[in-house]
């Protein structure tokens, strides 16, 4: 069972995609699109694909306000019935960051981070956050439900 980032790193993936994009709110759609594609290839049904799209979006939200001076590096992998996604933010977000940070109030962000955690708890089989090589890193794992039947 995968409980930690180290467990995740030991899994063998049958297909892996790396996605790197500027940490801009309007580019998070790329992460959702790629996650949906890899989930479909893993045999996820429509509901599960939608869950994964939301979960990968929440990984990005968990980094806080976007900053287009930074980039988000995402590794999406699948092995049979399981999709794993590891995302890292290459620069620690600062209050002076661009994008959403300019126009969203602190209350909205505080609420969002808490709600994001609840969503990830519900939509994934496992997820976590830690600092790897000095970068904020968030990961998730989701298994195809039919695999349990």
């Amino acid at each position, binding site marked *: 069972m995968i409980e930690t980032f180290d467990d995740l790193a030991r899994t063998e993936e049958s297909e892996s995609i790396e996605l790197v994009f500027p940490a801009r*709110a*309007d580019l*998070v*759609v790329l992460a959702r699109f790629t996650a949906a594609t890899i989930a479909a290839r893993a045999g996820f049904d429509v509901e599960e694909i*939608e869950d994964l*799209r*939301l979960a990968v*979006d*929440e990984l*990005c*939200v968990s980094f806080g306000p*976007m900053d287009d001076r930074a980039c988000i590096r995402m590794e999406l992998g699948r092995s049979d019935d399981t999709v794993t996604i590891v995302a890292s933010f290459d620069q620690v977000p600062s209050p002076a960051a661009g*994008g*959403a940070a*300019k*126009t*969203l*109030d602190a*209350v*909205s*962000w*505080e*609420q*969002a*981070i808490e*709600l*994001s955690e*609840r*969503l990830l708890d*519900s*939509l994934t089989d496992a997820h976590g956050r830690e600092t790897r090589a000095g970068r904020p890193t968030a990961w998730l794992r989701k298994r195809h439900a039919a695999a349990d039947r």
Partner: protein
Amino acid sequence: MLDQPYSRGQDASLPVVVLAGEVDLAAAPSLHSELQSLISAGHSTVVVDLLEVTFLDSIALGVLISALEQCRELDGELHLVLTEPRILRVLEITGLMNTFPIHSSHDELRSAVGEVSRP
């Protein structure tokens, strides 16, 4: 995700913000400024129409909760109109089903607002 994810209308004399498509990190700032502009203009009760929304993430919910709190400080309310099961599920997962007044149609909203305003 849309550059301008909303339009504005009126229902039962209340301002309505109509959202469509994917309301995410990119759309949240526009939603935030639209709601702030209505509240600043003196509207303590606002309606957000989510009937055509297909995706709603935690940051969009954070914006709605922040606006709801401001409306309630002014003795108003923030009503949601929605039927999309996926959006209802997001509200359920996050424990917000009973936080907002939720209506399945504008008729239902008008009826509820009428009842609220009746002496």
